[in-house]
């Protein structure tokens, strides 16, 4: 197992190098560079801009720029952000925390709802509850998350207007007076700000996971050993929760890994819509303003998370299913 993981980790290196080359190339497709936008500013002379361009190395050929960036990246130096005049690592860490907080809460919320719901819907197949819930989840599969986010924001705004005070905060991560509050009030404030982003990113996944769980359990309930368990007179509860559910959960564990993989990339859209100050928002700004170092670092972290998530999914599957052996 350890050898397998090591091998997979080593295989990631050439992939990451290729990804970095391609993304670096892509970011150079845009006309001009970060300093182009300053050229319209009458208080900055062309000489100053040229000097700055030279200092940042933006006047070098793309290949030279890439090698310089890669050398620094490999030694752990992510460089400075052009726009924020701060170390990229510090900026990314700050935003990564916000994204991970959102992602963690969303995952918890999703799994806590979808697993019991899926089990219940499989057990109560063909009941009216199952039919209604099925249609609702199918409908939610068709609602794009960005539109759901907009609808929730609108609902919150209407509620706030109707009650004449802020029931659910719109956008941002903390209130203005966050820093001066006590620990408990801080947590409450954060939780309130999390409501809309978490619900927005979770609803779609709840619909998917619930369908998966239901499907898995229905498959398992048709197996011979379930019939055997029933035939020997076990109570239905024991049959379902001890025999069936445990086996139906197995394939779900793999999905945890994919969830992890999608953590950065998957929430970026929503962060931009509901105004959650996470990595996705930072990345959009960085790419649009051609803040090269910041954009590259973000892209590389996203790619790394994706590769690690896929590895995690394989390893989790091997752990949960003894029939699977990972070959080194």
């Amino acid at each position, binding site marked *: 197992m350890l050898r397998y993981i090591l091998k997979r980790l080593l295989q990631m290196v050439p*992939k990451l190098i*290729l*990804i970095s080359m*391609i*993304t670096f190339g*892509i*970011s*150079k*497709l*845009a*006309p*001009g560079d970060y300093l182009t936008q300053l050229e319209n500013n009458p208080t900055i002379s062309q000489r100053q801009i040229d000097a700055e361009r030279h200092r940042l190395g933006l006047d070098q050929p793309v290949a030279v720029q890439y090698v310089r960036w890669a050398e620094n990246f490999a030694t752990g130096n992510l460089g400075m952000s052009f726009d924020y005049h701060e170390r990229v690592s510090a900026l990314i860490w700050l935003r990564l925390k916000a994204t991970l907080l959102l992602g963690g809460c969303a995952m918890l919320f999703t799994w806590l709802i979808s697993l019991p719901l899926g089990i219940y819907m499989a057990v109560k197949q063909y009941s009216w509850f199952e039919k209604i819930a099925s249609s609702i989840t*199918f*409908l939610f*599969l*068709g*609602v*794009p*998350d*960005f*539109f759901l986010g*907009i*609808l929730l*924001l*609108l609902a*919150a*705004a*209407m509620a706030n*207007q*109707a009650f004449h005070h802020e029931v659910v905060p*719109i956008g941002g991560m903390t209130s203005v007076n966050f820093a001066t509050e006590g620990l408990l009030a801080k947590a409450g404030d954060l939780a309130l700000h999390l409501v809309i982003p978490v619900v927005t990113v979770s609803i*779609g996944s709840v619909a*998917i996971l619930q*369908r*998966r769980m239901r*499907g898995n359990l229905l498959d398992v309930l048709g197996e011979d050993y379930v019939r055997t368990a029933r035939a020997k007179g076990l109570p239905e509860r024991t049959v379902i929760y001890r025999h069936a559910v445990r086996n139906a959960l197995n394939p779900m564990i793999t999905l945890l890994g994919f969830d992890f993989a999608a953590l*950065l*990339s*998957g929430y*970026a*859209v929503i962060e*931009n*819509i509901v105004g959650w100050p996470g990595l*996705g928002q930072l*990345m*959009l700004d960085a*790419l*649009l303003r051609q803040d090269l170092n910041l*954009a590259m670092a*973000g*892209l590389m972290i*996203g*790619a790394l*998370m*994706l*590769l690690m998530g*896929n590895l995690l999914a394989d390893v989790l599957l091997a752990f949960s299913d003894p029939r699977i052996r990972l070959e080194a």
Partner: protein
Amino acid sequence: MATETKLPAMERPAEELPPPISSGRKVWRRFRRHKMAVFAMWVLGVLYSLMIFADFFAPYTMTSVDRTRAYQPPAAIHLRDTKGHWHLPFIYNWKETEDLQSLFTSTGPISGVAIGGWHEDKSKRYPLHLFVQGEPYKLWGLIPSDIHFIGITDPGTRFYLLGGDASGRDLFSRLFFGARVSLTVGLVALAIVIPVGTILGGIAGYFGGAVDTVLSWIIETVLAFPTFYLLLALFGATYKWSLSSTQRFFLITILLSFLGWAGLARVIRGMVLSLRSQEYVEASRAAGASHLWVIIKHLIPQTASWIVISISLSIPGYIYAESFLSLLGLGVQPPDASWGNMLQPALNVSDLLMHPWMLVPGVAIVVTTVAWNFFGDGLRDAFDSKTRL
């Protein structure tokens, strides 16, 4: 289960062989049993026909603008005038209210939401006509005409069925033109994805060995790109290019298909890998068929049903990707319409409270996505031989 893919990625590989294609009639009969799928098919049919004849069905052209009518509320269609007389459907002119009193008392379609101080000027009726002469257009860029399906003849007001947008253009008309982008982006992207994905996947699975190793590595690397960030990078780099609207549309589809082919190739590779050891493939080879012939003639048709299903289920992914890119301002650029960029004003919540009709393009996206999902689901059930039992 394939409806889950939100970004342009194909379904995860199916472990078992594709179901054998049964005769078209059997498939159709099984499909018809799926009521929602049939209904979805009709919805899609209507949507696509409306899109094809967008110039005719839209009361105004895409860029037709009256700046004084920015955020004009949706037209209220009346049958009775102020004196209680009945008429054929007509509308009144919306006028912006000057006095503040009515600004706070007038309410919009959602109760409690002020509609920004507009009121109907009931002094003059503007009857609605079918097949009315309006702004000239060229259908499909070829046939010049000025007949619109519905509209008013009097230039005294404008018939904005779903209200005006931020620049004073007709939201309803732009919905038709936006559909041109949003409804076709998936189809055009798939026209690139399917040949590339099936051929590369087929080659990798069929030949195995070094070819397979190299191609699989490329496929895995493309799949390892963080999709959203890569889309952002690609579109962030290209949105400043000055392109015509057609060029930009094709740029968008090409970029999206660049990400989509790998998922399909991986599945096809897996299928072909297991198919190529079948006896009929060996027989064909023994009879002297070339490799290309075997792949195209024997192997790819076997994967056809899977491809058809995955097409219909992956189209929502392309619609989604195009909409959010345009929504973030990276895709289709105004004044060209796409459902995504028409939704942009809705990002400002306090604005949206005043003009809730700006949500309509989002509703259109939802309807299309749900319809494609049901249609694809029905197709899958129809093709799946297991359900016959």
